[in-house]
Protein backbone atom coordinates (compact mmCIF):
# COMPACT_ATOMS: atom_id res chain seq x y z
CA UNK A 1 0.00 0.00 0.00
CA UNK A 2 1.30 3.41 -0.92
CA UNK A 3 1.12 6.41 1.36
CA UNK A 4 1.89 9.77 -0.08
CA UNK A 5 2.50 12.64 2.29
CA UNK A 6 2.56 15.94 0.53
CA UNK A 7 3.55 19.24 2.12
CA UNK A 8 1.86 18.52 5.41
CA UNK A 9 1.87 21.26 8.02
CA UNK A 10 0.52 20.82 11.51
CA UNK A 11 0.70 23.45 14.20
CA UNK A 12 -0.42 23.62 17.78
CA UNK A 13 -1.65 26.77 19.37
CA UNK A 14 0.09 27.57 22.58
CA UNK A 15 0.52 30.57 24.78
CA UNK A 16 -0.48 31.19 28.33
CA UNK A 17 -2.12 34.12 30.00
CA UNK A 18 -5.39 35.78 29.22
CA UNK A 19 -4.35 37.81 26.22
CA UNK A 20 -1.79 35.47 24.74
CA UNK A 21 -3.99 32.39 25.05
CA UNK A 22 -3.70 30.40 21.83
CA UNK A 23 -1.97 33.25 20.05
CA UNK A 24 1.37 31.54 19.48
CA UNK A 25 1.80 28.69 17.05
CA UNK A 26 4.26 25.88 17.28
CA UNK A 27 4.86 23.91 14.12
CA UNK A 28 4.97 20.23 14.95
CA UNK A 29 5.16 19.47 11.24
CA UNK A 30 6.41 22.01 8.78
CA UNK A 31 6.06 21.26 5.08
CA UNK A 32 6.67 17.53 5.44
CA UNK A 33 6.66 15.39 2.32
CA UNK A 34 7.66 11.79 1.80
CA UNK A 35 6.31 8.61 0.30
CA UNK A 36 5.94 5.13 1.66
CA UNK A 37 6.31 2.69 -1.21
CA UNK A 38 4.84 -0.72 -1.63
CA UNK A 39 6.39 -3.33 0.71
CA UNK A 40 8.90 -0.90 2.05
CA UNK A 41 10.34 -0.44 5.51
CA UNK A 42 10.67 3.27 6.07
CA UNK A 43 12.48 4.62 9.08
CA UNK A 44 11.70 8.00 10.55
CA UNK A 45 14.44 9.19 12.81
CA UNK A 46 14.83 12.38 14.78
CA UNK A 47 15.17 13.70 18.29
CA UNK A 48 12.22 13.99 20.63
CA UNK A 49 9.89 16.81 19.70
CA UNK A 50 10.83 16.63 16.03
CA UNK A 51 7.34 15.58 14.97
CA UNK A 52 7.86 11.86 14.46
CA UNK A 53 4.86 10.75 16.47
CA UNK A 54 2.71 13.56 15.10
CA UNK A 55 3.22 12.17 11.61
CA UNK A 56 1.90 8.81 12.76
CA UNK A 57 -1.16 10.43 14.29
CA UNK A 58 -1.80 12.45 11.12
CA UNK A 59 -1.58 9.41 8.85
CA UNK A 60 -4.32 7.72 10.86
CA UNK A 61 -6.35 10.93 10.93
CA UNK A 62 -6.27 10.93 14.73
CA UNK A 63 -5.53 14.61 14.46
CA UNK A 64 -6.28 17.20 11.82
CA UNK A 65 -3.59 18.78 9.69
CA UNK A 66 -3.44 22.46 8.76
CA UNK A 67 -2.26 22.18 5.18
CA UNK A 68 -1.19 19.55 2.70
CA UNK A 69 -2.50 16.12 1.79
CA UNK A 70 -2.07 12.64 3.12
CA UNK A 71 -3.05 10.13 0.46
CA UNK A 72 -3.48 6.47 1.16
CA UNK A 73 -3.83 4.52 -2.06
CA UNK A 74 -4.74 7.81 -3.70
CA UNK A 75 -7.49 8.59 -1.19
CA UNK A 76 -7.16 11.59 1.07
CA UNK A 77 -7.75 10.25 4.60
CA UNK A 78 -8.01 13.65 6.24
CA UNK A 79 -11.03 14.75 4.23
CA UNK A 80 -12.55 11.28 3.94
CA UNK A 81 -16.03 10.53 5.17
CA UNK A 82 -16.37 8.69 8.47
CA UNK A 83 -17.01 5.39 6.77
CA UNK A 84 -14.12 5.80 4.38
CA UNK A 85 -11.84 6.75 7.27
CA UNK A 86 -12.77 3.56 9.05
CA UNK A 87 -12.14 1.65 5.89
CA UNK A 88 -8.69 3.17 5.45
CA UNK A 89 -7.76 2.81 9.11
CA UNK A 90 -8.62 -0.86 9.08
CA UNK A 91 -5.63 -1.47 6.83
CA UNK A 92 -3.24 -0.21 9.49
CA UNK A 93 -1.88 -1.42 12.74
CA UNK A 94 -0.12 0.83 15.17
CA UNK A 95 2.12 0.44 18.17
CA UNK A 96 2.70 3.60 20.13
CA UNK A 97 5.69 4.15 22.31
CA UNK A 98 5.47 4.15 26.10
CA UNK A 99 4.53 0.54 26.96
CA UNK A 100 2.63 1.16 30.21
CA UNK A 101 0.03 3.38 28.53
CA UNK A 102 -0.33 1.22 25.43
CA UNK A 103 -2.77 -1.18 27.05
CA UNK A 104 -5.98 -0.43 28.87
CA UNK A 105 -5.13 -1.04 32.53
CA UNK A 106 -8.65 -2.38 33.16
CA UNK A 107 -8.67 -4.93 30.36
CA UNK A 108 -7.06 -8.32 30.46
CA UNK A 109 -4.38 -8.82 27.83
CA UNK A 110 -6.71 -11.19 26.01
CA UNK A 111 -9.37 -8.51 25.62
CA UNK A 112 -6.83 -5.94 24.50
CA UNK A 113 -5.63 -8.26 21.74
CA UNK A 114 -9.02 -9.60 20.68
CA UNK A 115 -10.97 -6.36 20.67
CA UNK A 116 -9.51 -4.83 17.45
CA UNK A 117 -9.97 -8.16 15.68
CA UNK A 118 -13.60 -8.39 16.68
CA UNK A 119 -14.10 -4.78 15.57
CA UNK A 120 -12.85 -5.83 12.16
CA UNK A 121 -15.36 -8.63 11.96
CA UNK A 122 -13.06 -11.58 12.64
CA UNK A 123 -14.93 -14.48 14.23
CA UNK A 124 -14.18 -15.01 17.96
CA UNK A 125 -12.88 -18.50 17.26
CA UNK A 126 -10.38 -17.31 14.68
CA UNK A 127 -9.46 -14.30 16.79
CA UNK A 128 -8.47 -16.60 19.65
CA UNK A 129 -6.34 -18.75 17.39
CA UNK A 130 -4.61 -15.71 15.97
CA UNK A 131 -3.97 -14.33 19.44
CA UNK A 132 -2.32 -17.58 20.58
CA UNK A 133 -0.23 -17.62 17.43
CA UNK A 134 0.86 -14.02 17.95
CA UNK A 135 1.79 -14.66 21.57
CA UNK A 136 4.02 -17.45 20.39
CA UNK A 137 5.61 -15.15 17.83
CA UNK A 138 6.48 -12.50 20.39
CA UNK A 139 7.83 -15.23 22.69
CA UNK A 140 5.31 -14.82 25.46
CA UNK A 141 3.62 -17.65 27.30
CA UNK A 142 -0.09 -17.96 26.50
CA UNK A 143 -0.96 -17.73 30.20
CA UNK A 144 -0.20 -14.00 30.04
CA UNK A 145 -3.42 -13.62 28.04
CA UNK A 146 -5.25 -13.78 31.36
CA UNK A 147 -3.05 -11.13 33.01
CA UNK A 148 -3.71 -7.48 33.56
CA UNK A 149 -1.12 -5.07 32.12
CA UNK A 150 0.18 -3.99 35.53
CA UNK A 151 1.20 -7.56 36.23
CA UNK A 152 3.63 -7.48 33.30
CA UNK A 153 7.01 -5.85 32.84
CA UNK A 154 7.53 -2.99 30.40
CA UNK A 155 9.12 -5.29 27.85
CA UNK A 156 6.27 -7.77 28.13
CA UNK A 157 3.72 -4.99 27.74
CA UNK A 158 5.44 -3.80 24.61
CA UNK A 159 5.50 -7.29 23.17
CA UNK A 160 1.78 -7.57 23.87
CA UNK A 161 1.23 -4.30 22.01
CA UNK A 162 3.23 -5.67 19.09
CA UNK A 163 1.26 -8.92 19.22
CA UNK A 164 -1.96 -6.92 19.12
CA UNK A 165 -0.73 -5.23 15.94
CA UNK A 166 0.44 -8.50 14.40
CA UNK A 167 -2.86 -10.33 14.74
CA UNK A 168 -4.50 -7.70 12.56
CA UNK A 169 -2.37 -8.66 9.54
CA UNK A 170 -2.39 -5.10 8.26
CA UNK A 171 -1.07 -3.69 5.01
CA UNK A 172 0.89 -1.05 6.83
CA UNK A 173 2.23 -1.19 10.34
CA UNK A 174 3.26 1.98 12.13
CA UNK A 175 5.69 1.32 14.95
CA UNK A 176 6.57 4.19 17.24
CA UNK A 177 9.74 3.31 19.11
CA UNK A 178 8.80 -0.37 19.04
CA UNK A 179 11.93 -1.66 20.71
CA UNK A 180 13.12 1.11 22.98
CA UNK A 181 11.61 -0.55 26.06
CA UNK A 182 13.08 -3.94 25.33
CA UNK A 183 16.28 -5.77 26.25
CA UNK A 184 18.86 -5.90 23.49
CA UNK A 185 18.32 -9.62 23.05
CA UNK A 186 14.56 -9.23 22.79
CA UNK A 187 15.02 -6.22 20.52
CA UNK A 188 16.84 -8.38 18.02
CA UNK A 189 14.15 -11.06 18.27
CA UNK A 190 11.38 -8.57 17.66
CA UNK A 191 13.18 -6.89 14.78
CA UNK A 192 13.85 -10.26 13.16
CA UNK A 193 10.24 -11.19 13.66
CA UNK A 194 9.13 -7.96 12.02
CA UNK A 195 11.46 -8.60 9.08
CA UNK A 196 10.20 -12.16 8.66
CA UNK A 197 6.59 -11.08 8.79
CA UNK A 198 7.21 -8.34 6.30
CA UNK A 199 8.53 -10.83 3.78
CA UNK A 200 5.84 -13.34 4.52
CA UNK A 201 2.86 -11.00 4.48
CA UNK A 202 4.13 -8.30 2.13
CA UNK A 203 3.48 -5.49 4.57
CA UNK A 204 5.04 -2.04 4.69
CA UNK A 205 6.37 -0.60 7.91
CA UNK A 206 6.88 2.90 9.14
CA UNK A 207 9.32 2.60 12.01
CA UNK A 208 9.74 5.68 14.15
CA UNK A 209 12.85 5.58 16.23
CA UNK A 210 15.83 7.50 17.47
CA UNK A 211 18.01 4.43 17.37
CA UNK A 212 20.18 4.38 14.27
CA UNK A 213 21.05 0.76 14.82
CA UNK A 214 17.42 -0.18 14.32
CA UNK A 215 17.40 1.87 11.12
CA UNK A 216 20.56 0.25 9.85
CA UNK A 217 19.26 -3.19 10.66
CA UNK A 218 15.77 -3.13 9.20
CA UNK A 219 14.95 -0.05 7.14
CA UNK A 220 15.13 0.33 3.40
CA UNK A 221 14.99 4.10 3.52
CA UNK A 222 15.35 6.72 6.18
CA UNK A 223 13.61 10.04 6.68
CA UNK A 224 15.46 12.31 9.05
CA UNK A 225 13.31 14.86 10.83
CA UNK A 226 14.47 17.85 12.75
CA UNK A 227 12.24 20.47 14.36
CA UNK A 228 9.20 19.44 12.37
CA UNK A 229 10.93 19.33 9.01
CA UNK A 230 12.27 16.58 6.85
CA UNK A 231 15.93 17.46 6.58
CA UNK A 232 17.14 14.39 4.79
CA UNK A 233 15.88 11.37 2.93
CA UNK A 234 18.25 8.60 2.03
CA UNK A 235 18.65 4.91 1.40
CA UNK A 236 19.99 2.84 4.23
CA UNK A 237 23.26 2.30 2.42
CA UNK A 238 23.93 5.85 1.42
CA UNK A 239 23.12 7.57 4.69
CA UNK A 240 26.30 6.48 6.43
CA UNK A 241 28.56 7.71 3.69
CA UNK A 242 26.71 10.62 2.20
CA UNK A 243 24.83 12.36 4.98
CA UNK A 244 24.31 15.93 3.86
CA UNK A 245 22.46 17.66 6.66
CA UNK A 246 24.47 18.55 9.77
CA UNK A 247 21.83 17.06 12.05
CA UNK A 248 22.10 13.75 10.25
CA UNK A 249 25.83 13.90 10.64
CA UNK A 250 25.48 14.55 14.34
CA UNK A 251 23.08 11.67 14.62
CA UNK A 252 25.51 9.41 12.87
CA UNK A 253 28.37 10.73 14.94
CA UNK A 254 26.54 10.14 18.19
CA UNK A 255 25.94 6.56 17.26
CA UNK A 256 28.75 4.60 18.87
CA UNK A 257 29.44 2.49 15.79
CA UNK A 258 31.06 5.33 13.94
CA UNK A 259 34.55 6.70 14.10
CA UNK A 260 34.77 9.90 16.19
CA UNK A 261 36.51 11.73 13.36
CA UNK A 262 33.24 13.44 12.50
CA UNK A 263 33.44 15.41 15.71
CA UNK A 264 34.14 18.79 14.16
CA UNK A 265 30.76 18.53 12.49
CA UNK A 266 29.07 19.11 15.82
CA UNK A 267 30.01 22.73 15.60
CA UNK A 268 28.27 22.90 12.27
CA UNK A 269 25.22 21.31 13.87
CA UNK A 270 25.12 23.86 16.62
CA UNK A 271 25.33 26.60 14.03
CA UNK A 272 22.63 25.00 11.94
CA UNK A 273 20.39 24.58 14.95
CA UNK A 274 20.66 28.27 15.66
CA UNK A 275 19.97 29.13 12.05
CA UNK A 276 16.90 26.94 11.90
CA UNK A 277 15.43 28.21 15.11
CA UNK A 278 15.75 31.84 14.01
CA UNK A 279 14.48 31.19 10.50
CA UNK A 280 11.42 29.45 11.93
CA UNK A 281 8.16 30.93 10.81
CA UNK A 282 7.37 34.17 12.56
CA UNK A 283 4.96 34.00 15.44
CA UNK A 284 1.54 34.73 14.03
Amino acid at each position, binding site marked *: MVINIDKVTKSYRVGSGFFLHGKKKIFALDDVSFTLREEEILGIVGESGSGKTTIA*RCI*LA*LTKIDEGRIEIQGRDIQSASRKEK*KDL*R*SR*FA*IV*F*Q*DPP*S*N*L*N*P*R*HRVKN*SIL*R*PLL*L*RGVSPQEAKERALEAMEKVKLDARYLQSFPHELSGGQQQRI*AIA*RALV*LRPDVMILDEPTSALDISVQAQILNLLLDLQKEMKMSYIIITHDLNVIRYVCDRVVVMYMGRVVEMADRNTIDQHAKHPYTKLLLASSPVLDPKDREDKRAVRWERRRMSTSKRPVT
Partner: protein
Amino acid sequence: MSDLAYIFKKNRYLRVGTIMVMILLFIALFADFLAPFAFDEANREARLEGPSADHWFGTDEFGRDVLSRVIFGSRIALRVAVLGVSIQVLIGVTLGLISGYFAGVTDQVVSFLADLTWSLPPIIMSMAVITIIGKGLDNTIIAISIVSWAQYTRVVRAKTSSLKNMAFVETALAYNEGHPSILFRYILPNTIPSIIVLVSLSIPNTIMSTTALSFLGLGAQPPSPDWGLALSSSILYLMNAPWLAIFPGMALVYTVFAFNLLGEGLRDLLDPRLRAR
Protein backbone atom coordinates in the same frame (compact mmCIF):
# COMPACT_ATOMS: atom_id res chain seq x y z
CA MET B 1 -7.48 -12.88 50.56
CA SER B 2 -4.23 -12.34 52.41
CA ASP B 3 -3.84 -9.15 50.35
CA LEU B 4 -7.06 -7.87 51.81
CA ALA B 5 -5.98 -8.77 55.34
CA TYR B 6 -2.70 -6.96 54.77
CA ILE B 7 -4.46 -3.84 53.47
CA PHE B 8 -6.72 -3.75 56.52
CA LYS B 9 -3.81 -4.28 58.84
CA LYS B 10 -1.84 -1.40 57.34
CA ASN B 11 -4.61 1.10 56.65
CA ARG B 12 -6.03 2.09 60.00
CA TYR B 13 -8.55 4.59 58.57
CA LEU B 14 -9.96 1.93 56.32
CA ARG B 15 -10.11 -0.64 59.12
CA VAL B 16 -11.91 1.56 61.63
CA GLY B 17 -14.09 3.22 58.99
CA THR B 18 -15.23 -0.10 57.57
CA ILE B 19 -16.13 -1.48 60.99
CA MET B 20 -18.02 1.68 61.93
CA VAL B 21 -19.96 1.70 58.65
CA MET B 22 -20.74 -2.01 59.01
CA ILE B 23 -22.17 -1.38 62.47
CA LEU B 24 -24.29 1.42 61.06
CA LEU B 25 -25.54 -0.79 58.24
CA PHE B 26 -26.33 -3.54 60.74
CA ILE B 27 -28.34 -1.15 62.91
CA ALA B 28 -30.27 0.23 59.96
CA LEU B 29 -30.96 -3.20 58.53
CA PHE B 30 -32.16 -4.75 61.79
CA ALA B 31 -33.79 -1.65 63.27
CA ASP B 32 -37.05 -3.56 63.69
CA PHE B 33 -35.39 -6.09 65.99
CA LEU B 34 -32.97 -3.77 67.75
CA ALA B 35 -35.37 -0.97 68.67
CA PRO B 36 -37.31 -1.66 71.89
CA PHE B 37 -40.31 0.42 70.70
CA ALA B 38 -41.78 1.66 67.45
CA PHE B 39 -40.39 5.09 66.53
CA ASP B 40 -43.87 6.70 66.62
CA GLU B 41 -45.23 4.89 69.69
CA ALA B 42 -46.28 7.64 72.10
CA ASN B 43 -46.71 7.04 75.82
CA ARG B 44 -48.48 9.84 77.69
CA GLU B 45 -47.41 8.50 81.07
CA ALA B 46 -43.69 8.80 80.26
CA ARG B 47 -43.13 12.22 78.72
CA LEU B 48 -39.67 13.88 78.83
CA GLU B 49 -38.22 11.19 81.06
CA GLY B 50 -34.48 10.97 81.43
CA PRO B 51 -32.47 7.87 80.52
CA SER B 52 -33.61 4.84 82.48
CA ALA B 53 -33.64 1.04 82.28
CA ASP B 54 -36.83 1.15 80.19
CA HIS B 55 -35.79 4.03 77.97
CA TRP B 56 -32.00 4.03 77.65
CA PHE B 57 -31.89 7.35 75.83
CA GLY B 58 -34.94 8.82 77.63
CA THR B 59 -38.24 9.90 76.07
CA ASP B 60 -39.36 12.97 74.16
CA GLU B 61 -42.26 15.38 74.66
CA PHE B 62 -44.77 12.81 73.38
CA GLY B 63 -43.29 10.00 75.45
CA ARG B 64 -41.65 8.35 72.47
CA ASP B 65 -38.51 6.29 73.06
CA VAL B 66 -35.46 8.30 71.91
CA LEU B 67 -33.31 5.18 71.47
CA SER B 68 -35.81 3.68 69.04
CA ARG B 69 -36.06 6.94 67.14
CA VAL B 70 -32.27 7.22 66.85
CA ILE B 71 -32.10 3.63 65.62
CA PHE B 72 -34.80 4.17 63.01
CA GLY B 73 -33.18 7.49 62.10
CA SER B 74 -30.15 5.59 60.79
CA ARG B 75 -32.35 4.31 57.98
CA ILE B 76 -33.09 7.85 56.93
CA ALA B 77 -29.41 8.78 57.04
CA LEU B 78 -28.53 5.84 54.80
CA ARG B 79 -31.39 6.62 52.47
CA VAL B 80 -30.02 10.13 52.17
CA ALA B 81 -26.56 8.76 51.51
CA VAL B 82 -27.64 6.29 48.82
CA LEU B 83 -30.20 8.44 47.04
CA GLY B 84 -28.23 11.68 47.25
CA VAL B 85 -24.95 10.23 46.12
CA SER B 86 -26.59 8.33 43.26
CA ILE B 87 -28.05 11.54 41.88
CA GLN B 88 -24.75 13.37 42.30
CA VAL B 89 -22.81 10.59 40.60
CA LEU B 90 -25.28 10.39 37.76
CA ILE B 91 -25.17 14.12 37.01
CA GLY B 92 -21.54 14.72 37.91
CA VAL B 93 -19.93 11.76 36.19
CA THR B 94 -21.96 12.14 32.99
CA LEU B 95 -21.10 15.81 32.66
CA GLY B 96 -17.48 15.17 33.62
CA LEU B 97 -17.06 12.48 30.98
CA ILE B 98 -18.68 14.60 28.30
CA SER B 99 -16.76 17.78 29.04
CA GLY B 100 -13.43 16.02 29.49
CA TYR B 101 -13.79 13.95 26.35
CA PHE B 102 -15.25 16.39 23.87
CA ALA B 103 -13.45 19.49 25.19
CA GLY B 104 -14.06 22.77 23.35
CA VAL B 105 -17.23 24.74 23.93
CA THR B 106 -19.02 21.87 25.70
CA ASP B 107 -16.19 21.72 28.19
CA GLN B 108 -16.26 25.46 28.77
CA VAL B 109 -20.01 25.49 29.39
CA VAL B 110 -19.93 22.52 31.76
CA SER B 111 -16.88 23.82 33.62
CA PHE B 112 -18.55 27.18 34.01
CA LEU B 113 -21.68 25.55 35.43
CA ALA B 114 -19.60 23.43 37.78
CA ASP B 115 -17.62 26.39 39.04
CA LEU B 116 -20.84 28.35 39.45
CA THR B 117 -22.59 25.76 41.63
CA TRP B 118 -19.29 25.16 43.42
CA SER B 119 -18.98 28.79 44.41
CA LEU B 120 -22.48 29.15 45.90
CA PRO B 121 -23.17 28.02 49.47
CA PRO B 122 -25.00 24.66 49.12
CA ILE B 123 -27.52 25.22 51.92
CA ILE B 124 -28.72 28.54 50.50
CA MET B 125 -28.85 27.11 46.99
CA SER B 126 -30.77 24.02 48.04
CA MET B 127 -33.23 26.19 50.01
CA ALA B 128 -33.86 28.02 46.75
CA VAL B 129 -34.43 24.71 44.98
CA ILE B 130 -36.78 23.54 47.75
CA THR B 131 -38.94 26.63 47.33
CA ILE B 132 -39.46 25.46 43.76
CA ILE B 133 -39.97 21.71 44.24
CA GLY B 134 -41.48 21.78 47.72
CA LYS B 135 -40.64 20.48 51.21
CA GLY B 136 -40.01 16.90 52.26
CA LEU B 137 -37.10 14.54 52.75
CA ASP B 138 -36.81 13.28 49.17
CA ASN B 139 -37.09 16.77 47.76
CA THR B 140 -34.35 17.88 50.14
CA ILE B 141 -32.09 15.09 48.94
CA ILE B 142 -32.78 16.09 45.35
CA ALA B 143 -32.09 19.75 46.13
CA ILE B 144 -28.80 18.97 47.87
CA SER B 145 -27.71 16.74 45.01
CA ILE B 146 -28.58 19.28 42.36
CA VAL B 147 -26.20 21.74 43.95
CA SER B 148 -23.35 19.38 44.86
CA TRP B 149 -22.53 17.34 41.76
CA ALA B 150 -19.72 19.69 40.78
CA GLN B 151 -16.94 17.87 42.62
CA TYR B 152 -17.61 14.71 40.60
CA THR B 153 -17.57 16.67 37.37
CA ARG B 154 -14.25 18.27 38.20
CA VAL B 155 -12.47 15.07 39.12
CA VAL B 156 -13.94 12.97 36.30
CA ARG B 157 -13.28 15.71 33.76
CA ALA B 158 -9.64 16.01 34.75
CA LYS B 159 -9.20 12.24 34.68
CA THR B 160 -10.94 11.93 31.32
CA SER B 161 -8.95 14.61 29.59
CA SER B 162 -5.69 13.00 30.69
CA LEU B 163 -6.87 9.50 29.81
CA LYS B 164 -8.06 10.40 26.34
CA ASN B 165 -4.51 11.26 25.26
CA MET B 166 -3.10 7.99 26.52
CA ALA B 167 -1.77 5.60 23.91
CA PHE B 168 -4.37 2.91 24.57
CA VAL B 169 -7.21 5.29 23.77
CA GLU B 170 -5.48 6.56 20.63
CA THR B 171 -4.85 2.98 19.58
CA ALA B 172 -8.49 2.11 20.12
CA LEU B 173 -9.49 5.09 17.97
CA ALA B 174 -7.08 3.98 15.27
CA TYR B 175 -8.73 0.55 15.42
CA ASN B 176 -12.12 2.15 14.71
CA GLU B 177 -13.56 2.03 18.20
CA GLY B 178 -16.57 4.36 18.37
CA HIS B 179 -16.78 7.28 20.79
CA PRO B 180 -19.41 5.72 23.10
CA SER B 181 -17.34 2.59 23.33
CA ILE B 182 -14.20 4.62 24.08
CA LEU B 183 -16.05 6.38 26.87
CA PHE B 184 -17.60 3.33 28.48
CA ARG B 185 -14.99 0.64 27.84
CA TYR B 186 -11.79 2.61 28.12
CA ILE B 187 -12.27 5.83 30.05
CA LEU B 188 -15.06 5.27 32.57
CA PRO B 189 -13.58 2.07 34.07
CA ASN B 190 -10.33 3.92 34.70
CA THR B 191 -12.08 6.73 36.57
CA ILE B 192 -13.95 4.40 38.92
CA PRO B 193 -11.34 4.35 41.71
CA SER B 194 -11.53 8.15 41.94
CA ILE B 195 -15.33 8.03 41.87
CA ILE B 196 -15.47 5.50 44.72
CA VAL B 197 -13.24 7.70 46.83
CA LEU B 198 -15.36 10.75 46.09
CA VAL B 199 -18.54 8.85 46.92
CA SER B 200 -17.39 7.92 50.40
CA LEU B 201 -16.13 11.45 50.98
CA SER B 202 -19.33 13.13 49.79
CA ILE B 203 -21.68 10.90 51.81
CA PRO B 204 -20.95 12.75 55.07
CA ASN B 205 -21.43 16.11 53.37
CA THR B 206 -24.73 15.04 51.91
CA ILE B 207 -25.97 13.70 55.24
CA MET B 208 -24.89 16.88 57.02
CA SER B 209 -26.56 19.18 54.51
CA THR B 210 -29.79 17.20 54.51
CA THR B 211 -29.80 17.16 58.31
CA ALA B 212 -29.29 20.91 58.33
CA LEU B 213 -32.28 21.38 56.03
CA SER B 214 -34.39 19.07 58.20
CA PHE B 215 -33.29 21.09 61.20
CA LEU B 216 -34.59 24.18 59.43
CA GLY B 217 -37.89 22.39 58.93
CA LEU B 218 -37.55 22.01 55.17
CA GLY B 219 -36.60 18.36 55.05
CA ALA B 220 -38.14 15.44 56.90
CA GLN B 221 -41.53 16.23 58.45
CA PRO B 222 -42.91 14.93 61.79
CA PRO B 223 -43.33 12.21 62.93
CA SER B 224 -40.26 11.08 61.00
CA PRO B 225 -37.39 9.94 63.28
CA ASP B 226 -34.91 12.04 61.27
CA TRP B 227 -31.97 13.19 63.40
CA GLY B 228 -32.03 16.74 62.10
CA LEU B 229 -35.72 17.01 62.91
CA ALA B 230 -35.06 15.56 66.38
CA LEU B 231 -32.39 18.19 67.02
CA SER B 232 -34.72 20.91 65.85
CA SER B 233 -37.64 19.87 68.08
CA SER B 234 -35.33 19.38 71.07
CA ILE B 235 -34.54 23.09 71.22
CA LEU B 236 -37.61 23.90 73.31
CA TYR B 237 -36.63 21.37 75.99
CA LEU B 238 -32.88 21.77 75.82
CA MET B 239 -32.51 22.91 79.45
CA ASN B 240 -34.78 20.26 80.96
CA ALA B 241 -34.23 17.33 78.61
CA PRO B 242 -30.76 17.56 77.04
CA TRP B 243 -30.89 13.86 76.06
CA LEU B 244 -33.27 14.82 73.26
CA ALA B 245 -30.42 16.64 71.54
CA ILE B 246 -27.39 14.68 72.73
CA PHE B 247 -28.27 11.23 71.40
CA PRO B 248 -29.43 12.13 67.87
CA GLY B 249 -26.46 14.50 67.69
CA MET B 250 -24.07 11.74 68.67
CA ALA B 251 -25.60 9.41 66.10
CA LEU B 252 -25.07 12.05 63.45
CA VAL B 253 -21.45 12.62 64.48
CA TYR B 254 -20.85 8.86 64.50
CA THR B 255 -22.25 8.44 60.99
CA VAL B 256 -20.36 11.35 59.49
CA PHE B 257 -17.17 10.27 61.21
CA ALA B 258 -17.56 6.69 60.01
CA PHE B 259 -17.97 7.66 56.36
CA ASN B 260 -15.16 10.18 56.58
CA LEU B 261 -12.78 7.56 57.91
CA LEU B 262 -13.87 5.10 55.25
CA GLY B 263 -13.36 7.77 52.58
CA GLU B 264 -9.89 8.66 53.84
CA GLY B 265 -8.96 5.00 53.95
CA LEU B 266 -10.27 4.32 50.45
CA ARG B 267 -8.46 7.35 49.14
CA ASP B 268 -5.16 6.10 50.47
CA LEU B 269 -5.91 2.72 49.01
CA LEU B 270 -7.35 3.51 45.58
CA ASP B 271 -6.08 6.88 44.59
CA PRO B 272 -3.10 8.12 46.56
CA ARG B 273 -2.64 11.00 44.14
CA LEU B 274 -5.90 12.60 45.33
CA ARG B 275 -4.33 13.14 48.74
CA ALA B 276 -2.55 16.23 47.46
CA ARG B 277 -5.76 18.20 47.04
